């Protein structure tokens, strides 16, 4: 190496083997590379391939709304006073003039009416938060129904799940900050829920509120949790989530030229940069326009919080609706014994809430255990080709919707002229029945679609051309599918159920089969057994039908 030789000869001017930079930009890049090693980083990533499908943008919406929430959130902290100190309002909103309120509420009024653009930023912050949680849910459904959570992506599924849960709770904390009549009612509900915790409930309540409800500490404490603690954790998880997406590379749909060993799509620079970067502005632009025309959380209409008052539309934001549904439909069971009260009416919903969520978090591990599949999966499943999984996902969504009806039973009652009691009774039964019905309907539907795919592969596509044969029969002409389509429709693998080991081994000795093994075989049978998938068309079947003595 010349540099080594020049160093050993003691020359005063160090030489470089690198070619002279062609322009200023290159020399600047060289300077940075010498310190940060950007060339090695860029080598792997500059032309990184991203496959294209509309559903892949759902995750992008989550990312971009998160960025929008942080940007607008920082702006709001510049004006918001997280204090429950009492003030008398003298602002430009006349109906509340002379009313006592907390500084938190008064400063939110100030942001909404005196700070120019403050109302807009508040609305963008709230709308973006709603879109964020909605996008996370839909993104999660996409990942679930396509099986994208399978190895090697199970951990990223858990990261995403944690982001959803944290996002939901940060939404709750944020919505509580303005200290308006609606949000105060939400905090009161939280207090009642905490008090229902056996043994330590009253202690947690006193410590969290700094005394009795509502005290003066809850808004400053929630503020710290809302702007610092939870977003900090979320930012860390988000970065980890994205690093893993980069590291695993994106999944893709089956299709010509697409395999488990490659990823087919457009490079990051320039196409994906322009599309993804542009998409950020599209999302931001649409949310800004929404905030200009659609009012969200008009706190001035609710008024400041007073524990002895309530507005009738006491509803949480929709993403908390399923927990609200649980709390509304649970019968008010209380067990009183030995001088203690166990409040089942609140505690049971409080326990089911995390269990419903946790069931989703662990699903990839359960499915992986049932299949025993140790391979990596990068090709997505069409939902119809995994009927049991699709059925379970649909059942979960139906449960969510049933509980949402429970959570909004008053709105359903007034808008549809129904009895609120009847809706509650319906939801109590529906909680158990609707998910089961949904599961079976969805599974059947998937199997029907599989049959249709098989039919299409073997008999071709309907052309709509009716032909009359010489002997008078009318037939519809079917056209063979092109090879690319044939491949796509048959590219999915069909997993076979796990088989129980033989009762007796090859030496005739009775082998012990444990309960776990048996359970697993049973589950596997219900996942992949005869009732759960339609056999794919084989090459022989295809030959037989297309070899000339056609049925059509």
């Amino acid at each position: 190496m010349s540099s080594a030789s020049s160093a050993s000869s003691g020359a005063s001017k160090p030489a470089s083997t690198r070619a002279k930079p062609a322009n200023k930009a290159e020399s600047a890049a060289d300077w940075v590379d010498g310190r940060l090693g950007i060339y090695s980083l860029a080598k792997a990533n500059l032309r990184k391939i991203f496959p294209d499908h509309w559903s892949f943008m759902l995750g992008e919406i989550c990312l971009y709304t998160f960025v929008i929430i942080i940007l607008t959130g920082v702006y709001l902290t510049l004006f918001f006073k997280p204090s429950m100190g009492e003030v008398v309002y003298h602002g430009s909103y006349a109906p509340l003039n002379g009313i006592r309120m907390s500084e938190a509420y008064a400063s939110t009024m100030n942001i909404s009416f005196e700070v120019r653009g403050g109302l807009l930023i508040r609305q963008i912050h709230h709308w973006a938060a709603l879109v964020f949680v909605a996008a996370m849910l839909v993104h999660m459904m996409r990942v679930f129904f396509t099986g994208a959570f399978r190895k090697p992506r199970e951990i990223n599924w858990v990261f995403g799940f944690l982001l959803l849960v944290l996002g939901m709770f940060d939404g709750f904390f944020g919505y509580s900050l303005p200290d308006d009549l609606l949000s105060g009612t939400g905090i009161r509900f939280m207090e009642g829920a905490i008090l229902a915790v056996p043994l330590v409930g009253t202690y947690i309540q006193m410590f969290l509120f700094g005394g009795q409800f509502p005290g003066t500490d809850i808004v400053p404490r929630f503020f710290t949790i809302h702007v610092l603690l939870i977003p900090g954790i979320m930012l860390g998880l988000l970065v980890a989530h994205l690093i893993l997406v980069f590291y695993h590379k994106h999944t893709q749909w089956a299709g010509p030229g697409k395999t488990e060993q490659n990823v087919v799509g457009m490079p990051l620079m320039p196409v994906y940069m322009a599309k993804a970067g542009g998409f950020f502005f599209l999302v931001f632009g649409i949310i800004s326009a929404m905030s200009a025309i659609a009012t969200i959380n008009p706190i001035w209409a609710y008024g400041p919080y007073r524990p002895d008052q309530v507005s009738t539309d006491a509803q949480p934001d929709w993403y908390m609706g399923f927990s609200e549904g649980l709390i509304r439909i649970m019968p008010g069971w209380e067990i009183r014994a030995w001088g203690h009260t166990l409040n089942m009416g609140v505690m049971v919903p409080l326990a089911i809430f995390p269990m419903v969520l946790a069931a989703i978090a662990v699903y990839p591990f359960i499915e992986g255990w049932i299949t025993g599949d140790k391979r990596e999966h990068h090709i997505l499943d069409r939902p119809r080709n995994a009927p049991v999984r699709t059925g379970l996902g649909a059942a979960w969504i139906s449960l969510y919707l049933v509980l949402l009806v429970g959570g909004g039973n008053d709105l359903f009652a007034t808008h549809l002229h129904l009895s609120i009691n009847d809706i509650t009774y319906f939801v109590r039964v529906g909680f158990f029945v609707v998910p089961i019905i949904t599961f079976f309907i969805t599974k059947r539907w998937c199997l029907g679609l599989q049959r249709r795919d098989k039919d299409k592969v073997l008999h071709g596509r309907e052309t709509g051309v009716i032909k009359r044969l010489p002997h008078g029969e009318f037939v519809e002409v079917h056209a063979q599918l092109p090879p690319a389509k044939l491949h796509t429709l048959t590219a999915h693998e069909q997993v076979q159920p796990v088989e129980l080991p033989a009762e007796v081994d090859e030496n005739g000795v009775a082998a012990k089969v444990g309960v776990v093994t048996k359970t697993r075989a049973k589950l596997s049978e219900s996942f992949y057994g005869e009732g759960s998938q339609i056999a794919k068309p084989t090459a022989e079947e295809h030959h037989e039908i297309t070899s000339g003595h056609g049925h059509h």
Partner: protein
Amino acid sequence: MSAEKLPESHGSEGHEVAGHGDPFADPGLPAHAPRRTDIDERAAKRAERQVSLMFVVSMLATVGFIASYVAIDPDKIVYIFPLGHVSALNFALGLTLGVALFCIGAGAVHWARTLMSDHELPAERHAIEADDDVRADVIEQFTTGAAESGFGRRKMIRNTLIGSMALVPLSGVVLLRDLGPLPEDKLDHTGWRVATEAKPLPLINMNTNKPMKAEDIAVGSLTFAKPEGLEEDDEDFQQQIAKDALMLVRIAPEDIKDNDSRELGFEGILAYSKICTHVGCPISLYEQQTHHALCPCHQSTFDLADGARVIFGPAGHPLPQLKITTNQEGFLVATGDFAEPVGPSFWERSA
């Protein structure tokens, strides 16, 4: 475990061309089909102009945003169909910002879709798992390191380390103790506790801020009350009213089904806690004909004529009732606290 049942084994290798043997084989990446802008220079020029136009619109919208910020009075309200009366400033700022941002995005996406290359390229994936050599090497290195630390051999050190690590987070938990006071019996009593037989506490009408006589309350009406001495500008008003709030209902005495409840009232006037026993919302919806009170939060329904028994919804026990009577001047007064804690139930609650 899971056997593939593919028509013929391909899939994993991919790229082989569809032979006559397998009708389902992967035909490989399709040939690139050029877009109009790839072959027609005029179409490309047009697309270029469209992209630039969107960026120019964005610039104009930003100027409009700044102009709106400066020019429009924050108090100005305008009527816009079908939105109704909206803040002119909010409407103008939001729409101009929206257009400014949207047009940048739309321009960039249109540019990418029409003018940037749309050749699909394959990139290889590599297994996440390390190969066997690397695995063996790492495990050996770890074993060496672990052996050198003596962690497994010196069990006393290991166990005491685990013990100290397990205990040290307790300090963090203990430090949270001063976040708030201990519960003690704070939840068991309300502001009405200062009332006694000898020194009863008048009920103050929430709306008029005046004491009430029995004749002020009509049969079938619902009135809200607070204890005398509690004023809105008191420092702990919020905390007090969260427990003290009363709901006064007057029912014709013959309609009251519960004898104990009738005894606690005065000439058919019954004083119930306004705080729902489910999770603590204030109850405010009253149905005169049936004497049912409904909590708007979770629809717990109480029969005020029957000791505020729960007749529907998730509440677990009746609303506590305050014993009331009248003093010498004829004003309604309370002579003591509620017999049981008001609001949501909790573990230590015994009544």
